[in-house]
Every structure is written in structure tokens, then in C-alpha cells.
């Protein structure tokens, strides 16, 4: 009896080992998808441009680049944004076959990705041209360039000009004016502001803007660096946010609303005119187009910055924002090819296309700014230039875990503002 079992066990174990060995050797040998078989370098490109028109811009960019670089082939793999950032990229960087070019948002998250040892240091590959790229320092880790931005974002209020006009609302410049506008809009039966609290991060925009208004830049910078929001001005920000929440500025049931999925999302509510405004990044117009049949959005949408809170200690014109950038993985040869492609994406030809379709906020080279087609985005871009400083979204500036903790704590605060949820925000980055 024992013997037969032993034989079967040995056979099964041997077979398991064979299969596992086969799997691991396969993965190891393919390192960095696509080699350089006959002198051709193949690169896989993961990005979040799943919809037109940005998908078309990227497809054209590949064609244009391949025409001038016949030895490089690029495979475009658009992936839904949340899946891409939260699941696909972290898992790919743990594996042996990460995409050669992948999208990320810089900051502490990029720093963490670099620790995987898979992300290529492209400092020397981009040194000749990176000086002309706005915001490139956000894609550095340990002083080295591990990525390159291709567009920049600013977070502000996207509002329906037609609704404001119909209800006699003026664009607010102070928080008090915004609150008074909210009251008027609600009296007209429109939800003043839509927010997608289900996702957490849209809530964080509010707290972060209050923090920028209430805290000096140096305090914000050191708080992110030390991963602690214990400075008293952050508690003030929480208190001010609670007072704002108390004015009931959001749509009914906002805690269960998603930000970007479908007509019932916060973007969908603004697009359909059920809500008048939304605090979002400048990708919002393209999200609205995707979830609505409203063809007049480009003329109906306006933009204004997060209101000022006179008398508070922080900058009244600091902007919250970020950008989309790309990092490279793979062999030295693939990294060089990747850097060449990123240089092409940051060329005037492609930059004018990227911002021209009204999808992607601000260009990383000044000369392309005139190509921004959407009037509201032009307003945002003009403000971006005049902002006292631009602070990266806190959840991206921090490493992933503290950033996620912060978003969760702020979302909890939206659900029930109290002193305990406020101190949870202050301590969130340091939760183990």
C-alpha cells in the first residue's frame, strides 16, 4: 500500500516540479516581452487611453514613431484606468514580464515602483531634452529620472455655464461665495456640486485643497516628506472641511456615487445637468463625454479654481494637480528605445495632438499650450501658469500604502466628520 502511494506521490511531485520549472523558465526567458530577434526592438505600451479621441492620438503617435524608427515596434495595450494603476502594474512589476512602457503618476508611488528593481533609470537617455519638459522633476526618484511626463493636470471646479446663467449664479472666488451659490442652486432644484465619494479619492481633493489653503507650502512639503499630517494647520483644514460639508453642498446620496462610471456617476450628473459643478482633474470633460449623450459640453462647461479662504495661513492660489507620465522597463536597448518614444510623445507634433483633443489637460512643453481646444481647459491651463505653486495629489506624492490610508480616512471623514475621524486623517499615513 505504502509503496504504491509513494510511487504515485513521487510521480506527481516530479510532474509538479516539471510544470513549475517549465512555467518559471518560460517567464524568465521572455523578460520584457518581445526581444530583439532580427534587430527589431518590440515594446509593449500600457496606457489608460481606452476611448477615442486619445486612443486615436496614441495610435497615430505609434505610426509616426515607427515610420521614423523602422527598427522599433510598439504594441499598444490600453487598459481601464483603475485596473491599470491599482492592479495590473503592481502585479506586472512583481512578475518577470512587466510592460516596457507603462503609465504612472510620478511621486511616491513611482518611488515605490522603482524599488522593484524593474524600472529603468533613463537619466542619461533623456538628459539632452528633459530640461525643456515642465514638471519632469515629479518623475524622479533619488535624483534620477525614472519616468517622463506627457501631460499635466490641475484639479478645479468644472461647472455648467448654462445652469449658472439660467439661475443667475456668478462664478465664486471665495469659499463663502461658493456656499452662497450652492444655496441658490439648491433652491432652483439642482444639486450644487456632484462628488463621487464611493471612490474615495475625489473626497481627498477637498481635504487637500483645504490643506493647501490652510497650511504654508513648507508645512505641506515636510508633511508629505515625513508622512505625517500632525501639524495643527491640517486639523484646521479638517475643521473647515467639516463646516463646508455641513452646508450640504453635494447631490443626494453622494456617499454611494462613483466618480466616473456611467450616467449616475458624479461626472454623469454634471454632464446631464442634474448637478451644476464638480471638483475634478482636467480629464473630467473627456469622462463626461464618455458617460453622456450631451453634445454641447464643450461650450457648456466652464472652469474655476478652488475658492480662496481669506485670512487662512496657506497659499490662496496654490493648485492641486499631477500628470500622466511613462516609465520604461526591460533591457538597456529597450530602455533606450522607450526613451526615444517618450521624447517623441513630448515633441510639439504629438503634444499639440494630445492637448488638442481636449482630453489631457496641459502640455509639458509651453509651445503646445495654444493647441488646447476646450475653452474650459484653456481657463484651467492659464490658471496653472499663474498658480503660486502646484502640489501633487497627496495620495500620489506619498507611497502607495500611506496614500491609500489617507484617501480612506478622508472618505470616512466625509461620511461622519468628527474629532476622531479628523485625527484618523492626521495619523493615516503612519498606520502600519
Amino acid at each position, binding site marked *: *500500500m*505504502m*509503496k*504504491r502511494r509513494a*510511487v*504515485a506521490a513521487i*510521480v*506527481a511531485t516530479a*510532474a*509538479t516540479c516539471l*510544470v*513549475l520549472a517549465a512555467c518559471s523558465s518560460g517567464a524568465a526567458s521572455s523578460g520584457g516581452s518581445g526581444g530583439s530577434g532580427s534587430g527589431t526592438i518590440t515594446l509593449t505600451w500600457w496606457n489608460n487611453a481606452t476611448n477615442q479621441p486619445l486612443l486615436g492620438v496614441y495610435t497615430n503617435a505609434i505610426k509616426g514613431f515607427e515610420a521614423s524608427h523602422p527598427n522599433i515596434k510598439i504594441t499598444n495595450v490600453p487598459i481601464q484606468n483603475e485596473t491599470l494603476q*491599482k*492592479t495590473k502594474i*503592481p*502585479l506586472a*512589476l*512583481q512578475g518577470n514580464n512587466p510592460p516596457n512602457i507603462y503609465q504612472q503618476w510620478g511621486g511616491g508611488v513611482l518611488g*515605490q*515602483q522603482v*524599488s*522593484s*528593481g*524593474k524600472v529603468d533609470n533613463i537619466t542619461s537617455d533623456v538628459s539632452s531634452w528633459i530640461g525643456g519638459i515642465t514638471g519632469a522633476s515629479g518623475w524622479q526618484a533619488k535624483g534620477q529620472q525614472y519616468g517622463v511626463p506627457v501631460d499635466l493636470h490641475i484639479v478645479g471646479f468644472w461647472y455648467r455655464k448654462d445652469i449658472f446663467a439660467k439661475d443667475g449664479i456668478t462664478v465664486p472666488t471665495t469659499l463663502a461665495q461658493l456656499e452662497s451659490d450652492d444655496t441658490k442652486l439648491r433652491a432652483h432644484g439642482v444639486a450644487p456640486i456632484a462628488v463621487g*465619494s*464611493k*471612490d*474615495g479619492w475625489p473626497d481627498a481633493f477637498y481635504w487637500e485643497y483645504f490643506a493647501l489653503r490652510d497650511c504654508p507650502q513648507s508645512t505641506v512639503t515636510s508633511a508629505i516628506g515625513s508622512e505625517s499630517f500632525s501639524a495643527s494647520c491640517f486639523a484646521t483644514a479638517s475643521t473647515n472641511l467639516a463646516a463646508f460639508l455641513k452646508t450640504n453642498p453635494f*447631490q*443626494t*446620496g*453622494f*456617499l*454611494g*456615487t*462613483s466618480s466616473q462610471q*456611467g450616467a*449616475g456617476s458624479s461626472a454623469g450628473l454634471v454632464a446631464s445637468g442634474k448637478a451644476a459643478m464638480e471638483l475634478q482633474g482636467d480629464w473630467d470633460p473627456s469622462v463626461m463625454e464618455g458617460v453622456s449623450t450631451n453634445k454641447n459640453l464643450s461650450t457648456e462647461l466652464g472652469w474655476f479654481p478652488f475658492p480662496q479662504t481669506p485670512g487662512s495661513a496657506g497659499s490662496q492660489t496654490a493648485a492641486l494637480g499631477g500628470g500622466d507620465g511613462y516609465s520604461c522597463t526591460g533591457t538597456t536597448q529597450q530602455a533606450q528605445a522607450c526613451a526615444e518614444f517618450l521624447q517623441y510623445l513630448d515633441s510639439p507634433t504629438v503634444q499639440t495632438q494630445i492637448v488638442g483633443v481636449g482630453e489631457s489637460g496641459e502640455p509639458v512643453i509651453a509651445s503646445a499650450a495654444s493647441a488646447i481646444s476646450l475653452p474650459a481647459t484653456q481657463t484651467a491651463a492659464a490658471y496653472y501658469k499663474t498658480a503660486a505653486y502646484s502640489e501633487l495629489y497627496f495620495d500620489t506624492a506619498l*507611497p*502607495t*500604502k500611506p496614500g*491609500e*490610508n489617507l484617501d*480612506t480616512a478622508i*472618505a*470616512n471623514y*466625509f*461620511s*461622519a466628520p468628527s474629532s476622531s475621524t479628523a485625527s484618523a486623517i492626521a495619523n493615516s499615513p503612519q498606520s*502600519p
Partner: protein
Amino acid sequence: MSRSTALKAGPGPAAAGNTAAAGPRRAPWRRGPKLRKNTELTILLAPGLILFVGFVLVPIVIAAYYSFYDWPGYGPLNHPIGLRNYTYAFEDPAFIHAIEHTLTLTVASVLIQGPLSIGIALLLNRKFLGRTFLRTVIFAPYVLPPAVTAVMWSLILQPSGFLDQVFKAFGLGGLVQLWLANTHIVLWTNFVVLTWQYLGFGIVLLLAGLQGVPEELKEAAAIDGAGPWEVTRRITLPLLAPTIRIWAFITIIGSLQIFDIVWILTEGGPAGSSGTIATYMYLNGVQADDFGFAGAIAVILFAFCFVFALIYQRFALRRDTQGALTRAVG
């Protein structure tokens, strides 16, 4: 069975040596089936065993191993922290709430879906016009992928959405709630959607079980003067008990691990008010790039399920599976 036993069991040396020709012929014939049986067993068992070891046992062991490290998913495992991931989990009120929510959903599934499934299955077991149609309709939700169910219900449950309009149309506007945003209600909203999805499964399982209840017994009981209620209580339900026990087992294990519908409907929110152990693991482990912590939560969830499964096997399922699982065969 070793070779020596095989020889003992076979005809003795005297019998084997009866004729010179029979000996050598008989030996390979005897060994043949044994070799064939071993080969068959190996061929048939190996693929399943490889998959089970590779995709179930090894990942469990690896998750348990990761759980002793502070590991963001990148780079080498070089920061062992002992049981810190486990102690942190049990110190986190959000995790304790997630356990409470998971147990609430589990108990509610058994106590509410159970009687509902049994009742509807008993009704659908009677002969009436449109029975097949009704059976199909009731089973249909189970055929839908949970993701589709969740997206569909998230649209139905929106403020002023379809459900609210239905309530208002029937003059029940006062009962309308913020189904997905009210922290006191949202767990039960999830439960209703879960019930909608999985009720059909229980009913079909129980209908299959009801086919095994002999008509003669019911008729005999009826002749002896038992009313329909007594027949159901004393004949049908006891004979249906093995199916009910299996249904409860599947439901409880499924509820302990529930993730997909809850994640898509509410992401465990608002403020963690509908979070389950699995959504907590995904939010605080996977999305936060804290794979050591995710491993610890996974191990805790595994321990819950494993301990429950063992106890249930020992006390509830033993009589149903005797001879199949609890006693060695061969």
C-alpha cells in the same frame, strides 16, 4: 498493496509450478493489471493533483509566508515583522467591522435564504401550469455573472432610480432610502442583492433533492391520515435534510468569502459600513500595495473557512458523506 501481499494473495508456488508453461505466462498476466492500475491512477490523478498543489496548496503556503513580512509587493522579502500583520489586523476597528459584516451576511443568508429556498422549492415541486417557466425565471439570476448583477443593481438602486420610482408608483415613497449611501442600510442592500443572485441556486439544489423523496412514502402517510403540513414536516423535510445541509455548507463558505457583488456595489463603503473580510483584504492589502498584510488577512479568512468546514464535516455532514469522505476507501 505491496508485491509480497500480491504474491500471498495469488495462487501458491505449488499451483504456479503445476506446469512449466503456465508459470511464466501467468506472472506477467498477474503483474499487468497492477501496473496498468498504477499507471491509470497516476495519469488520472496527476493533472488534478498538480493543479491542486500548484494553484491551491502552494499559494496558501506562499500567502502564509508573505504574511510574516512587511512587503509592498516590490523587491526582495527582507523585512520580517513576525505576527505584526496579524496583530494590526485585529487592532484595526475596520477589520473587526468587516468580520462582523461578513458574519451578519453569513447568518442572514442561512436564516433568510434557507426558509425562502425551501418554501419556493416545495411550491415549485407541485404540478401546475407554467411551472417550468417559473423555475427558469427563478434560476435566471444565478446564471448572470455577479459583476453584471452588481452593475445592474447599482443602477436600479441609485437615488431616484428604478426602485425608488417603483416605491413611489405604489404610494410607498416614504419607504425610499439612500440604499447605497446610508451607512445603516447599505449592508442589507448588499444582502438583498446577494439573495436575488443566489436564491435560485438553493431552489434548484433543493428541487433536485425533492426528486429523491419517494411519492409512495407521502402517499402512505396521507393514507394514514397525515395532512399536507404533516407530510411536509415529517416526510419531505427529513428526507430533504442532506440536501439542505449541503446547501447550507456551500452558502456559508460562499458568504464568508463574499467579494464581487459587494465590491462593485459599494466597495465596502461608505466608511467601511458594508465591508467584508475579502473587500477589506483587497482595499487595505492589494490596492495599498501591502501584500504581506493582504497575506495575513487571506490566512485569517482561510482559517475561518477551514475551521468551519472541519466542524461542519464532523458534526453535520458526516452522516451524509459517510463512506465517501470520512472513511478511507480501498
